[in-house]
Structure formats: C-alpha cells, structure tokens
C-alpha cells in the first residue's frame, strides 16, 4: 500500500505522537520512512545555513532515530532544508515519489501549546501541503493522542 511515507515534523510534542502513528504505519506497510523538517526562510549566509541544517539534522536524529531502530525499521532518511516549508516538502514528495505525507493539523495545535485537545484551525503549512501535494496527505488530529482521545 504505502511504500514510501514522508513524515513532516516541527519537532513539537504533538509531532512526537504523530510520529508514533507514522512508525506503526511504516511498520505495517514495510515502508521506507522519510522525515522532513523545514527551517523556513532563513536570513543567513550560505555557511550559516549549512550549519543550521546540520544542527537541525542532529536534532531530528536525536528525536526519532532511536525509536525507529527500536521499531525494527532500517529504511529511513532524514531531510532538512531551508525555504518555504510546504513548498519544499511537496517538492521532496514529488521528486522522491512519496505515497503519502503524514502530518498534524498545526504547530499551534492546542496540545502543542499545553492546552486542550480540540482541533483548531488548520495551520498554514498543512493547508498548503494539502493543496500542493502530489500524493495523499494523512492528517492526524490532536484528539487521537493516546490518553487524550475523545469518546
């Protein structure tokens, strides 16, 4: 079903939960898991951008690699870039032939800022990703987070 899954993260607690869902999805489908973290437009020189990307890659690896290995997945890639996040992520999805992009509703989702689990308005990145994505986009709501799920 899904052979290549792209997980878009902003390294928040909410993304941590979405990552668990993505890991299960990747395991079920024996898929290759790509993690994308966008830095946005940086007003820095080339050297500083390269350093910022390097630092961010280390942050992403710290946040997720251990869990990927624990889950028994070996086929994964970390991709960090600067530039418009939705545009870069959909470009990556197109170039790498992704089957699905997995992401949350918003960096500002209430759970991310320590409030309740109600779904808020869609963030600009997910809205634009849905519009530009060459593949299906799977949006995981905050209400699905274990222990906080509705109903």
């Amino acid at each position, binding site marked *: *079903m899904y052979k290549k899954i792209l997980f878009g993260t902003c390294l928040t607690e909410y993304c941590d939960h979405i990552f668990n*869902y993505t890991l*299960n*999805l990747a395991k*079920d*489908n024996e898929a290759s898991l790509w993690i994308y973290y966008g830095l946005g437009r940086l007003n820095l020189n080339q050297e500083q951008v390269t350093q910022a990307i390097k630092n961010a890659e280390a942050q992403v690896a710290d946040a997720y690699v251990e869990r990927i290995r624990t889950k028994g997945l070996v086929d994964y890639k970390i991709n960090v870039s600067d530039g418009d996040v939705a545009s870069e992520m959909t470009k990556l999805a197109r170039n790498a032939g992704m089957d*699905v992009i997995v992401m949350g*509703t918003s960096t500002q989702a209430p759970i991310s800022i320590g409030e309740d689990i109600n*779904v*808020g*308005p*869609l963030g600009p990145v*997910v*809205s634009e990703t*849905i*519009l530009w*994505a*060459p*593949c*299906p*986009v*799977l*949006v*995981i*709501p905050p*209400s*699905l987070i*274990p222990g906080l*799920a*509705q*109903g």
Partner: protein
Amino acid sequence: MNAAGKIENILWPNDLSNCSEEALPHVLSLAKQYGAAVHVLYVAEDLSRHDPWYGGFNASHIKKIINWEMKKAKERLQEFCQSGLEGFVGYSKKIEVGDPARVILDFIDKYSIDMVVMCRRGKKNNFAMGGVSQKIVENSPVPVVITPSAKHLEK
C-alpha cells in the same frame, strides 16, 4: 489506527463527483491492507435549513426536491458501488440528509470510524479545496486522508 493499532472502519464520504471516485483506489488499498470495512456515505443537502430570506417557501416543494435527490443518489450510489467496489464484500452504503460536514462528523462518532478518506475537491469544484473537506480535516477526531484530484496532478 484506533487505540488497538488497527483500522477497522474506513469512511469514504462520496458526493458522486469524479474526484470522489478518484479516492476509491486509495480506500480499497487501505481496506485490503487492514481488513477494514468501508462505509460509503452520501449526504443530501438539507435545503430546508436555509433561512427563507425572500419570504416563506412551501415546505412540500423542498421535501419533493430532497426526496428526488435521495432517489437519484440511491440509484447512482448503487451504480458507483457496483462498478467500483465489485468483489469487495466489506462495504455498506448510506444516504443521509443534512449539513454534509456535520453529518460526516456525526457518522464518525456513531460508527466508530478509524479513518476518513476523501478527495480534496468537491462536486462544485470551485475552489482548490472543497469546503466540506476543509471542515472535516479541521474537526475530525480521527485521521483524515485527503487525496489530490487528477486534475490537480496534471498541472
């Protein structure tokens, strides 16, 4: 996936548009992968909920229009399912009347839906993202897969 890590019930809201049909392969792949049941839902817009801005209207006319839409939707949904879901036994179809987004959200609760799959554009195809899809992504308590339309991918 639900709390048990399974996808048992997939909802495919269908407005009988081409775009809805384009989501079908995705729905079927997911259903086969997870052994899930597929719920096909068509929602007829409840015209009577609109305010009578230009004076009262005859409720029986509205009822006739809705009944006609329900009848046509039933026939078309039957054709749709027979051609698209042929050989797939685990599906059920339902036609409801009301505000489409509200009915879909209620359906998710009522039938313990684990995932919704719908197309980005709706029947009207006026905007890049349909109003119903947007409301569902913003308010759904379960994961939603939004599939792009072929028209969009051609660009």
